[in-house]
């Protein structure tokens, strides 16, 4: 897992470098491998605020697209949302892609829900995919959603198993339903291991204030509070604010759990040894698989749920900090979830 | 100090200076020669081109024609920095000092390179102060200084920067007679040390008493250069305006028995204990002008603002025609019949960037013809502005011109006209002719006399003692917020008033 991740981030870097020097025609990233098959598919990717290079959600989507572009020789173009833009700007972004012949068009993030729902019916021949949203439904819309609660369940279990104090914590970036899924899974997993476990929970900000996803200082303060209170493993679902958690963990000699990507690989050298594991949300996998299907000639529509079974979520073992017993136990839970013996609620 | 006096080159020589703006000739063939070691006065009406000329000499503006020579060498001054480098310094009418800094800090500000900001600078300041008898203590806060002291600091600032020629723009306008004498003492000191002093003034008596040479300007050009011992003030005035100078002479008394204004125990407490206005009581009768004399900063402006209701902390009773207005707001007091010509017309009297007709509305927002219901009546206001322009001889192309575009005198005439509209009972005139030219001054004097004749009560505050004596029916002297003496203008001299104002001499 980690090897492929490293490979893909390197590929992403390479490709984004190409994209920066893209030609005047705006054709963007062609696969740089001359032998690769040439596909006539043009992918349009509409990012949320931050775009490519946010080291988080958008980057994961970019990674999936880059992989598909390279493998299938697709053409791609991308555009990112501006902070504080009106709803019409998101719609317009999708329309511009559609008018310019891009098909399929991938919208990254639930902020595009309304825009996709509105634009898709106007372009019945264009295929849309939206990540993290099931609100926009249509014959030409694929809803790529994740079972974050399942992955969080596993790291919750890991936290409980590795905690010496029987005391763990959860830091959410912004209290929105999406992040509450992480919390619900984490709590369920920890309590499955140890019904008496003490769990600290906090959200950095409330919607519509989304600064909680990008405020390491707040993240650090919250984490320090939890460690001071006796927690020794803290999980975050707070995007960029997670950096604060890692610092606090490194300074106090406690464990942190990363989210979305394998943060051991991405985090600064000085703090990575405090990252016990990361809950993986494989947006790249979802994007890649969607594009692979498109390449194959089928256009998926409706909800596609990326769960443990589909390898849409999971956990990382980089750093080898998890004990073998813990991993065994996690794998056990994983089987039980896949088989349906354990159902993880998505709501706290 | 003697090296330059041995040379024969004049300190400043201006030859054929011309400066024109489109349609206006500000300076035309100006020729002046200022000898080193002399005080050279330049007199002329406002608009005669004095300030343009000084701006040219101080590097603010460049002449279109003619040459500037300093100490015999032709120079090209394109900024004040050039002028300072050439040894020319200027003391402006409005002091440019930071109140919350010390004298030392003010002096070195912007000239830190000369002697640093520490002990060397202090030494240099003390040296200059001693050399020219300026009596300056470098560590005093400027806010603690009186007007005369501040002026000396300004002069020292200029000397500190190495000036050998000093321009003073109407330096006596803000001083009382005693301070004027001190200033002249300083100037003579400067002169004896070999500096050249260029002295701009309206006040011909002062010019005649201090200047060695007087140059008269009229309509942008130098009309004559005279020896002060060979002319008198009237002759000079005639040179300036080309006609006889008016004087603020009292006419027969119009004072009646009827008390229109009575102020009782008006007090304005101040945070540091001593009241700024201290238990002031007076009355003004119908048709009477009450003059208030005092050194600036002795509570005159606070007294006026308290009567206007601008200072909510003031206590005491103000009655206008028998009606107690003490509890009323400024607006209601104006409506009750108080007209107000403020001392600082730019700060308190005008909206400089608004057209004249809007300035006509100012202070009359609630009354006809300016207002109609909740709306401003632009048509009527403009019409009434036209009336004021006509009746008060405001020189302007029309009521839509911005107030800023008018000369000081015309701005002031507009204010007088405005404040006389709306049938006032009391007219407060604070320094009504400060900084206006001779023509406007005479007109404003006439208007004040008219007000008196019309049966208004007039409260006149002025630093110009001739004006006070000439216009007032009674004069009260204010010192440290208290009224300390009453004088009959028929029998008092400026010197006696000056003594009372400074608390020196005998109280009347």
């Amino acid at each position, binding site marked *: 897992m980690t090897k492929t991740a490293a490979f893909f981030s390197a590929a992403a870097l390479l490709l984004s470098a190409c994209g920066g020097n893209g030609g005047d025609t705006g054709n963007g990233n062609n696969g740089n491998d001359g032998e690769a098959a040439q596909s006539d598919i043009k992918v349009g990717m509409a990012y949320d605020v931050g775009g490519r290079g946010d080291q988080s959600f958008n980057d994961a989507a970019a990674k999936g697209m880059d992989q598909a572009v390279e493998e299938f020789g697709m053409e791609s173009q991308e555009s990112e949302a501006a902070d504080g833009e009106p709803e019409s700007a998101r719609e317009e972004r999708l329309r511009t892609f559609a008018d310019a012949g891009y098909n399929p068009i991938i919208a990254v993030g639930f902020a595009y829900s309304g825009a996709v729902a509105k634009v898709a019916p106007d372009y019945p021949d264009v295929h849309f995919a939206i990540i993290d949203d099931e609100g926009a439904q249509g014959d030409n819309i694929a809803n790529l959603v994740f079972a974050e609660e399942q992955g969080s369940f596993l790291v919750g279990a890991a936290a409980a198993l590795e905690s010496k104090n029987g005391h763990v914590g959860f830091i959410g970036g912004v209290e929105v339903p999406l992040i509450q899924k992480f919390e619900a899974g984490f709590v369920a997993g920890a309590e499955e291991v140890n019904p008496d476990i003490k769990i600290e929970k906090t959200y950095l900000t409330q919607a519509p204030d989304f600064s909680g996803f990008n405020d390491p200082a707040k993240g650090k303060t919250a984490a320090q509070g939890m460690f001071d209170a006796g927690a020794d493993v803290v999980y975050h679902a707070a995007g960029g604010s997670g950096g604060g958690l890692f610092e606090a963990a490194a300074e106090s000699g406690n464990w942190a759990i990363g989210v979305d990507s394998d943060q051991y690989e991405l985090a600064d050298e000085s703090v990575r040894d405090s990252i016990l594991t990361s809950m993986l949300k494989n947006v790249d996998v979802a994007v890649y698989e969607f594009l692979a299907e498109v390449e194959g000639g089928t256009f998926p529509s409706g909800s596609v749920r990326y769960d443990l079974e589909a390898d849409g979520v999971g956990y990382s073992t980089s750093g080898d900090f998890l004990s073998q017993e813990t991993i065994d136990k996690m794998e056990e839970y994983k089987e039980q979830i896949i088989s349906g013996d354990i159902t993880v609620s998505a709501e706290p | 100090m003697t090296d330059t006096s041995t040379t024969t080159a004049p300190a400043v020589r201006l030859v054929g200076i011309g400066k024109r703006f489109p349609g206006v000739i500000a300076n035309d063939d100006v020729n002046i020669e200022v000898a080193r070691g002399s005080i050279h006065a330049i007199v002329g009406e406002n608009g005669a081109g004095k300030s343009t000329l000084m701006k040219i000499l101080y590097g603010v503006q460049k002449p279109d024609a003619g040459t500037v020579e300093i100490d015999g060498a032709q120079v090209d001054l394109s900024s004040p920095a050039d002028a300072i480098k050439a040894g020319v310094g200027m003391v402006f009418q409005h002091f440019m000092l930071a109140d919350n800094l010390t004298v030392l800090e003010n002096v070195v500000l912007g000239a830190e390179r000369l002697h640093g900001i520490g002990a060397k600078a202090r030494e240099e300041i003390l040296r200059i102060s001693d050399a020219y008898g300026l009596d300056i203590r470098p560590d005093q806060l400027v806010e603690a200084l009186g007007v005369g002291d501040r002026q000396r600091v300004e002069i020292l600032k200029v000397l500190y920067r190495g000036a050998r020629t000093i321009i003073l723009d109407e330096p006596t306008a803000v001083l009382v007679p005693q301070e004027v004498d001190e200033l002249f003492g300083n100037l003579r000191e400067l002169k004896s040390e070999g500096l050249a002093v260029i002295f701009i003034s309206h006040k011909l008596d002062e010019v005649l008493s201090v200047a060695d040479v007087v140059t008269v300007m009229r309509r942008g050009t130098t009309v004559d250069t005279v020896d002060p011992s060979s002319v008198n003030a009237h002759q000079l005035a005639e040179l300036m305006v080309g006609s006889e100078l008016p004087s603020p002479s009292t006419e027969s008394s119009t004072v009646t028995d009827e008390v229109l204004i009575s102020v009782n125990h008006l007090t304005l407490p101040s945070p540091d204990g001593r009241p700024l206005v201290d238990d002031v009581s007076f009355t003004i009768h119908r048709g009477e002008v009450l003059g208030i004399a005092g050194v600036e900063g002795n509570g005159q402006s606070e007294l006026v603002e308290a009567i206007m209701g601008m200072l909510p902390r003031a206590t005491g009773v103000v009655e206008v025609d028998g009606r107690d207005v003490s509890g009323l707001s400024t607006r209601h007091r104006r409506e009750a019949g108080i007209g107000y010509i403020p001392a600082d017309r730019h700060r308190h009297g*005008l909206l*400089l960037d608004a057209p004249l007709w809007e300035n006509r509305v*100012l202070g009359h927002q609630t009354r006809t013809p300016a207002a109609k219901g909740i709306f401003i009546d632009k048509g009527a206001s403009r019409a009434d502005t036209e009336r004021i322009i006509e009746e008060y001889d405001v020189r302007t192309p029309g009521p839509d011109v911005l107030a800023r*575009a008018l000369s000081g005198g015309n701005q002031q005439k507009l204010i007088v006209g405005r404040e006389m509209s709306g049938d006032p009972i009391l007219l407060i005139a604070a320094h009504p002719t400060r900084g206006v030219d001779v023509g406007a001054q005479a007109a404003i004097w006439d208007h004040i006399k008219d007000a008196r004749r019309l049966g208004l009560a007039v409260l006149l505050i002025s630093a110009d003692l001739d004006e006070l004596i000439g216009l007032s029916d009674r004069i009260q002297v204010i010192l440290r917020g208290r009224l300390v003496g009453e004088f009959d203008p028929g029998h008092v001299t400026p010197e006696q008033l000056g003594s009372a104002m400074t608390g020196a001499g005998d109280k009347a």
Partner: protein
Amino acid sequence: MTPRMTRVLLSVAAPVLALVAAFAITSAVLLVAGDPAGEVWATILSWPEPRNLVNIVNSATVLYLSGLAVAVGFRMNLFNIGVDGQYRIAAFVAAVVAGEAWLPGPLNAVLAILAAILVGAAWAGIAGLLRATRGVSEVISTIMLNFISTSIVAYSLRQVAVREEGSNIIGTKPIPESSRIPGFSISSEVSTDVYGFLLIAVLAGVGYWVALNRTRFGFDLRATGQSQTAAVASGVNVKKMTVTAMLVSGGLAGLVGLPILFGNAYSYGSTFQSGLGFAGIAIALLGRNHPIGIALGALLFAFLDEQSNPLQILVDVSPDIVKITQGIIVLTVVISYEVVRRYGQRLEQRQVAQALESSDNTKAEVRA
């Protein structure tokens, strides 16, 4: 030329000067970065499609209200930096009120609009009161109130939020169909309507102009802005004016989010547009606090925003370039207004002097 005509010409000269400068500087940035300046401008300056026109007008409507709100303060030398917080808390309250639908149909919308105005005014009024009674700079207090507003809205949204099935967006209860403000369609091929709120924005602009330029209140407000000391001497109660001006500014700010609320979003949720208050500051500066100037400024900003959207897709240039242009426009506008103002002042002084000289000459002739 009459002084009035000169003034109009000069006031047009300033923004034109600023725009030219801004476009030149932006082009220089593009060239230095090696981006195709020609194509960028061709994209931005192309005539918009009908649906883009609708978007431009709609965005401009919102920006216009924001600009007006800021301009009221500017006319009195008050810097209401808090329009951002005011419109968000007001839009939230309006969304809750309209979502609850206590009154039927259009009455519900009216009630919600009034609520927004009141809340916006009250929120700004806090800063006004602090300034009037305690001398707290409204710049500081409105910035702080922005933060507080953000937090209050976030906190309250969680209390009242409903979640659409399958969506990760949370928001207030949607406004019932009957209380939405219908838009008008400009063409059958465009699915988006022009906000019906446009009319209210136009009315607000007219009201702003009349109130400021024709009423005693407006005179007092402008007088205070031009010279507080002169206003005091003329009998204006400056403290009262400060509070009133902030109330008016905040009331207008309360309207800012409503076109979106009633014409598009129908609820206040996690994706409600942010940052409109700050755009309003730039637009008020650009429009010189004049209702028509602000309208032009709002249209310009909306136009640039809309036209820059496809830049990345079509020309491979980040639309952020337009943010640079907008920023430069604001800077150059401030500078060019000052330059033109000084020029105009000198011009007028000369004209006055000229007029007087000629009249003096005639007088002299008469005397002779």
